[in-house]
């Protein structure tokens, strides 16, 4: 029975992706474009050359972090919509630190900058965690609002403190960059950076933490039944705050990937960074499981990067590409629906045979 549900766990996300791709194909057909040429362009554009593989992995890197962050809070029963804002602040403060202390030798500067980014994200998420633990406010509303606060605070700081009323900061010192020459060489000058290895390591760390440690067990217990775990002597308040801190620090690291790796600076943002919300979708598709998150982040990276090639190669306009990607994400989000159908059919079948 247990094996069975594991199989279901794999089947449901796979199925939702297939359905999404089919709907996307239908949409392309309706608009008069060749869906096969479109998807071929997408696959080519995501994995067709070492450059595109590098870009896809680069796109997936911050998503792995934000998704891991979201899933930790989610396991404890909180919907941390604020990963976007936490990531933005992680990005801002890691870059800020790297720019402020260029005299620190490269690798150490990188290391401390990443920690600063993680701390910034953790503190930002901690606000929501604290309010939830002691005043029982809704973490959803608080984190949504904190997203906007983060956005405008970051933009203000970039314009007025980190630069002289320009919209981008200087680049971080070369030594502190996560972009390693051999990675760029390997992938014909893609923006792939060392963050991908950190992401893989963090996925393992999160898995061990959640599955093998007492603290992880408590977080899971609180998520499953806060009353029972309280009765068992666990502090719900403490676990709420801890899970939000971990969630925020992972999101902050995801943002720091953009700052120390992809862009090497931070610029005025027109909107809340999409790595936050995409990360939530990645976590939901990966069912909160670190391995699942790795695969679904890869899928999202491939959709985004591969989608860029569709207008060029298959003449599918950008707008239609966006609809196709959205329809895939829609089914990803609706995987509960698919699960329900699967479960119901299973039950019916059972009844029928007996």
């Amino acid at each position, binding site marked *: 029975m247990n094996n*069975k549900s594991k*199989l279901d766990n794999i*089947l449901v996300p*796979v*199925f939702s992706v*297939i359905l999404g791709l*089919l709907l996307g194909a239908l949409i392309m057909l309706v608009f008069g474009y*060749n*869906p*096969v*040429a479109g*998807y*071929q362009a997408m696959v080519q*554009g995501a994995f067709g*050359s070492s*450059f595109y593989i590098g*870009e896809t992995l680069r*796109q997936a890197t911050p998503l792995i972090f934000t998704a891991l962050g979201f899933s930790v809070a989610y396991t404890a029963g909180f919907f941390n919509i604020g990963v976007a804002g936490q990531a933005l602040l992680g990005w801002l403060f890691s870059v800020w630190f790297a720019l402020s202390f260029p005299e620190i030798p490269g690798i150490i500067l990188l290391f401390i900058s990443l920690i600063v980014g993680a701390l910034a994200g953790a503190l930002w998420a901690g606000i929501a965690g604290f309010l939830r633990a002691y005043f029982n406010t809704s973490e959803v509303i608080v984190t949504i609002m904190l997203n906007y606060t983060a956005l405008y605070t970051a*933009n203000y700081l970039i*314009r007025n403190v980190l630069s002289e*009323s*320009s*919209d*981008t900061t200087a*680049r971080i010192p070369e030594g502190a960059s996560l972009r390693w020459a051999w990675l760029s060489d390997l992938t014909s*000058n*893609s*923006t792939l950076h060392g963050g991908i290895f950190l992401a893989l390591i963090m996925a393992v760390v999160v898995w061990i933490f959640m599955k093998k440690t007492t603290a992880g067990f408590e977080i899971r217990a609180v998520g499953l039944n806060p009353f029972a775990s309280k009765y068992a002597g666990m502090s719900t308040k403490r676990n709420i705050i801890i899970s939000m801190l971990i969630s925020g620090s992972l999101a902050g690291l995801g943002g720091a990937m*953009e700052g120390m790796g*992809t*862009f090497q*600076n931070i*610029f*005025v943002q*027109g*909107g809340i960074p*999409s790595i936050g919300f995409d990360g939530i979708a990645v976590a939901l598709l990966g069912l909160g499981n670190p391995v699942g998150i790795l695969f679904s982040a890869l899928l999202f990276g491939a959709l985004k*990067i591969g989608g*860029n*090639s569709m*207008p*060029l*190669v298959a*003449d599918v306009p*950008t707008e239609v590409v*966006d609809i196709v990607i959205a329809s895939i994400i829609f089914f990803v989000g609706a995987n509960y629906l698919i699960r329900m159908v*699967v479960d119901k*059919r*299973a039950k019916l*079948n*059972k009844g029928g*045979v007996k």
Partner: protein
Amino acid sequence: MKKRNLMSLLALGLISGATLAACGSSDSDTSSDSAAKSSTSDDKFSVVMVTDVGGVDDKSFNQSAWEGMQAWGEENNKEEGTEGFKYLQSNEDSEFVTNLNSAVQAKFDLVFGIGYKLKEAMTDVSGQNEDQHFVIIDDMIESPNVASVLFKDHEAAFLAGVAAAESTESGQIGFIGGQESDVISRFEAGFVAGVKEIKPEIDVKVEYVGSFGDAARGKQLAAAMYSSGIDIIYQAAGDSGNGVFSEAKDLMNADDSKKLWVIGVDRDQNDEGKFDTGNLTLASTLKGVGAAVKDISNEALAGNFAGGEVVNYGLAEGGVDLTDGNLTDEVKEKVAEYKQKVIDGEIEVPQKP
């Protein structure tokens, strides 16, 4: 029992996989077709532009670049596609590098970056591909394989300021910018200087949307300005500026007794100002992005790519200008007078507010 359920899932997966595979084979035929086509055309010079986040239908900056490229294609009998001309839209800043690299890998001869936002990405990509020719609009990259195109936006904005100050009835004027940056500051500085030149007592109200792609917020800012008594707004906000037009049109459609105006930007936005009983585009500042794209493409086609050079387009060069729009003859004269003064160097328009 459950097995059957699983089997049906698997079967569906297989079927859909097979269908896709079947289509896949038919598609490889078409791709070989197009390859054959390309080998028959002898002149293969092709250009591509990577947009900033506004997109080619922003009715302003990107669109005018794209129109210039289309005009170039028509002139040289090129078709839209990888063999002629093409645009790649960027929805996010992280896509600049990907799009520029895709353009390089698709073997376009000339790659345009439309907007200062692409500077960092283009600096990297042009450094990595030294044999590839690039053009950056609105910023400067010092590299032998990049041509830089700058516009004296402040000069055109100055004329817009003159026109606004001459035309205002309420004596209140507003400016809505896209994202705070060197380029948009030029617009702001020129516009404010133009207004002050005519009516030093007017304080121009300045607001920024914070994005070039947020028409909703542009509309909100415009609503606040119009309700505070401002009757002319100059918008330099790309796609966000369409919100300013939409708010002005809504207000004028509801009640056209009090005249409200918008000054358009980058291309002639007269069509954007049409409402039920008239037109509310006072005038538009022109930025010859399209002409620049066309010129540079033509020169590169002839083998004279201006790599490493910085081309400056101002009023004197005809690179920027102000349309007549719905200006009265009196105002037109005034504008012409000041235009001459700027060209003659009698007036130095400031670049920074």
